[in-house]
């Protein structure tokens, strides 16, 4: 398990990192390394250059910014899990990250690395999408912001260009929203077979608003828009929720593999969405 040879840069600022990327036609960015290192070691990829973001302090940390919280792309899962701002304003993200792999990986892996890697079975895409986050991307031409809905383009493909870096995730505060992440796996350390991220704003017993993100139901994280529409403004009865959640798989194209075929995943999406929404509304 020895990677092929590569050049290595460990810049200390975003500007230097962008310069290092601009310098090569075949560079890969190393964040927490929880996906990239196995890929290199199994020689599934052999980039000419690795740009390691580990020394860039400005990419780490979580802060409040008006009606949003801003999470640095290099913030480790473990730091997000213990952060009070996340717990208060983005409970859904915390719920999802609690299910990621194992403690070692949660200490090394970063939210930004996972988002840019964009494995559809990864657990942070769906909550970021459901929370209507904005992704801050730095490039040679300066900084731009992309809505989560436009960020995920395809399997392992995002709006982040070859010469760009994801620097931060800006999540609008969902203060007081109920949240749940229902993850379905066969063994604990497995990638999600299907998972559902649901967060709701209640108005008494009724559901005022609902956001539902789906993990591994297509080539990118998806929103269960039909379910969201059916839930919004509904009375929140068990029957109503069950009906709305039965629509979760509409418009999805899940994969088939050893863990289950597409039909089974569609079925799971419905069951898990119902369970996630019921849990999010507190039942």
């Amino acid at each position, binding site marked *: 398990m020895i990677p092929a040879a590569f050049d290595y840069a460990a810049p200390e600022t975003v500007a230097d990192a962008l310069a290092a990327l601009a310098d090569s036609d075949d560079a890969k960015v190393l964040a927490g390394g929880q996906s990239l290192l*196995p890929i290199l070691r199994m020689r599934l990829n052999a980039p000419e250059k690795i740009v390691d973001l580990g020394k860039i302090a400005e990419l780490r940390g979580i802060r409040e910014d008006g009606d949003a919280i801003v999470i640095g792309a290099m913030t480790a899962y473990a730091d997000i899990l213990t952060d009070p701002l996340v717990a208060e304003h983005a409970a859904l993200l915390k719920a999802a990250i609690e299910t990621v792999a194992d403690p070692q990986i949660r200490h090394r892996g970063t939210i930004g690395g996972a988002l840019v890697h964009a494995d559809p079975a990864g657990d942070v895409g769906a909550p970021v999408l459901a929370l209507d986050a904005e992704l801050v991307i730095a490039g040679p031409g300066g900084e731009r912001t992309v809505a989560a809905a436009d960020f995920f383009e395809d399997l392992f493909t995002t709006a982040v260009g070859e010469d760009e870096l994801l620097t931060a995730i800006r999540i609008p505060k969902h203060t007081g929203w109920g949240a749940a992440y229902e993850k379905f796996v066969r063994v604990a350390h497995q990638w999600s077979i299907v998972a559902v991220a649901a967060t709701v704003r209640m108005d008494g017993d009724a559901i005022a608003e609902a956001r539902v993100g789906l993990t591994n139901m297509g080539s990118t994280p998806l929103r269960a828009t039909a379910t969201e529409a059916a839930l919004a403004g509904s009375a929140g009865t068990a029957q109503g929720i069950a009906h709305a959640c039965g629509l979760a798989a509409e418009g999805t194209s899940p994969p088939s593999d050893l*863990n289950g075929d597409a039909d089974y995943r569609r079925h799971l999406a419905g069951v898990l969405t119902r369970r996630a929404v019921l849990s999010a509304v507190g039942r």
Partner: protein
Amino acid sequence: MTTVDDRPSAEIGNRRLRKEDQRLITGRTKWTDNITLPGMVHLAMVRSPFAHARITSIDTSAAKEAANVIAVYTAADFPDGMGACANAWPITPEQVTPDHLPMVGERVACAGEIVAVVVARTAAQARDAAELVDVDYDVLPAVLDGLEAMKDEVLAHPDKGTNKSAFWKLDSAEAGTGGNVEEAIAAAREDGIVIKREYRQQRLIPAFMEPRSTVVDPTGEQVTMWTATQIPHILRFLIAATTGMPESKIRVIAPDVGGGFGGKLQTTPEEFITLAVARRLGKPAKYTETRSESLVSAHHGRDQYQKLTLSATKDGTVTGLKVELVANLGAYVAIVGGGVPVLGAWMFNAIYKFPAYQFNCQTVLTNTAWVDAYRGAGRPEATFGIERIMDELAAEVGVDPLAIREKNWIKHEEFPFTSVAGMTYDSGNYEAATARAKELFGYDELRAEQAARRESGDPVQLGIGVSTFTEMCGLAPSRVLGSLSYGAGGWESASIRMLPTGKVEVITGTSPHGQGHETAWSQIVADRLGVPFEDVEVLHGDTQVAYKGLDTYGSRSLVVGGEAVVRAADKVIEKAKAFAAHLLEANADDLEFSGGRFGVKGTDQGIGITDIALATFASHNYPEGLEPGIDADATFDPDDFSFPHGTHLCAMEVDTETGQTRMRKYVCVDDIGNVINPLIVEGQVHGGLVQGIAQALWEEAVYDENGTLVTGSFVDYTLPTAADTISFVTENTTSPSTTNTLGTKGVGEAGTIASTPAVVNSIVDALRPLGIHDIVMPCTPERVWKAIQSAGSHDGETTTEAQPHFDEAAPNNADPGSTGEGNAQ
């Protein structure tokens, strides 16, 4: 000199922490890959990506020019060969056994087979250069599945003309150990119950923790090989036998070895290649596999299709059992690959009194990784088949699965009992183990909860799975092995050296790779010789130190190797007695040995055995006619196997909405005879249970239609971790074995053998009211859910695509016991 007064009164039975754990857990020890020798070169293998292909050319020129590459070799560079991976157990004289060479030059017969080796100054440079070796292949059609292979349409080895390797049969009427099974089945068709079932034992990967690694030092008079193996002695013999090197010029060392589970019971291509390269270059050489290589090219386990026909009277008394197996051996007949399924011959009848029995085993070759021993080796497969079909019989008769077992099992007063397969079970008490297991489990309460959930239509149903297993272990009586054409004996050797400072060295021919022999053997010797546990050092795994042995597998180390240690210790005492008599000026008949001391009966006179060791070291004063020294060797060849047994109970919640299963409770009460160290036993049982549960729920080696291993990493080969298991309740009942002095049976494989059917039985039990009578392993949530779906859609009929149907002409339904029709998938 250490005094013996503060020792515990008995070491045997003590929960001693393991002596070896600190160094094993921290890794500060001699793992093979930790070994670095002066001038050592590193190897990287070039492996075939194709399951079956003709090699048309190999261009090594670019690799040879890469940085710090010393050599690149193909099979053509070794015209006299490099030795061979031998089959030590041809199960029939006619067995088709393709030559298994470490490196092939013309045709590859499975993915991962080695076609070239790169030698470089560093492992990284070797790996880089291996990418530059350019091999052209003509891809040939590949046969992967055992039943496909039976058709002989695509041949794994076209020159052999067939995929069928050997057919092996045991028939109780022919052997004189029972009646005619066909007559029993015919009679039951008239007036009784006949149940036919087909079960699949999926292919598994042993997945030991330490990847395989080999270091060879060719300098010096003896060539030394350190290797991560379970079988240093057998390997040394087979290197000599297949390379022509004098055995006396070969030293094999299994240093600390990080697990094996049968997966390191092999002589591997990589070992032969590393040896050949080191000798060719005259330099020490190292090869360590990657995990990816290990999954593809270390041997796999299981992979059987089982067809069972059970006959019984209407009240559920069994009258006959017919077993027909198709065992996929992979591309070659590995060291005991053909023999592993045959071990089932004595185990399918299990603990039940079948009057008539027949076992048929057809082995077949395919273009897949070779298949050989994996924890339990033949016995888990058999136990699964019989314990599954006994549940089917219970359902057919309409009684509790434990009741049908009790009706048919050997009563404790009937031991020793000769089975219909001709084995004599020396001891056992199935009633006692079952009663205790039921009590610990809360059997009646859980049955009541199951009924309540069924009644209320709870989406989470509860199932209770039973497995009352036995196994044969302590491999093996040499004469029995001889009668089966096995290539070696089954004895074991031990030596005890009494050092002048009072310390004791115990040399064992067994070769631990995680079992804790150093601790257990120390406990045995401490008690036997009356010396402190800490003063005993156990040496093993080096053919120069432990020059005689048959290594570790088949739950043999304690019951065979431990007995050899006991006998060596007894010889030490016997020798020391003459010296004691001399030094005490007493008659040997007046001496008694106790607590490490020879005392003269009726006096306070005496001398410690360690004082005698010092006296013989000095040898200033010893009896005329005796050699100075009390060291001793012993070789023990067992008269018979030992037969552990146990009752395992599993409660499983099945979420009918998703097919997800969640284990609620697992209780096992095993009778493994006397226990040397309960802590080690618990560890063996816990680990064994998880491995068996993993077969039921999680693990399967899957090839795609081209013969590429899909489960080529732990992302897809879903090995469980502690996070996936619950706290098990384990206890023992004790019926001491009568085949060895210590009264021990084996425990290394018990948990694995017993747990798989208990788990599958629990899932089927939860869903049986829906008409479901099988789920193919691993019982993934998808398979469970699909079984539920198709059961529901057929209004309780057993037409489920998750149920196995191997032969379209013979659907998988019970004869009169049928609850539905099969449909092929």
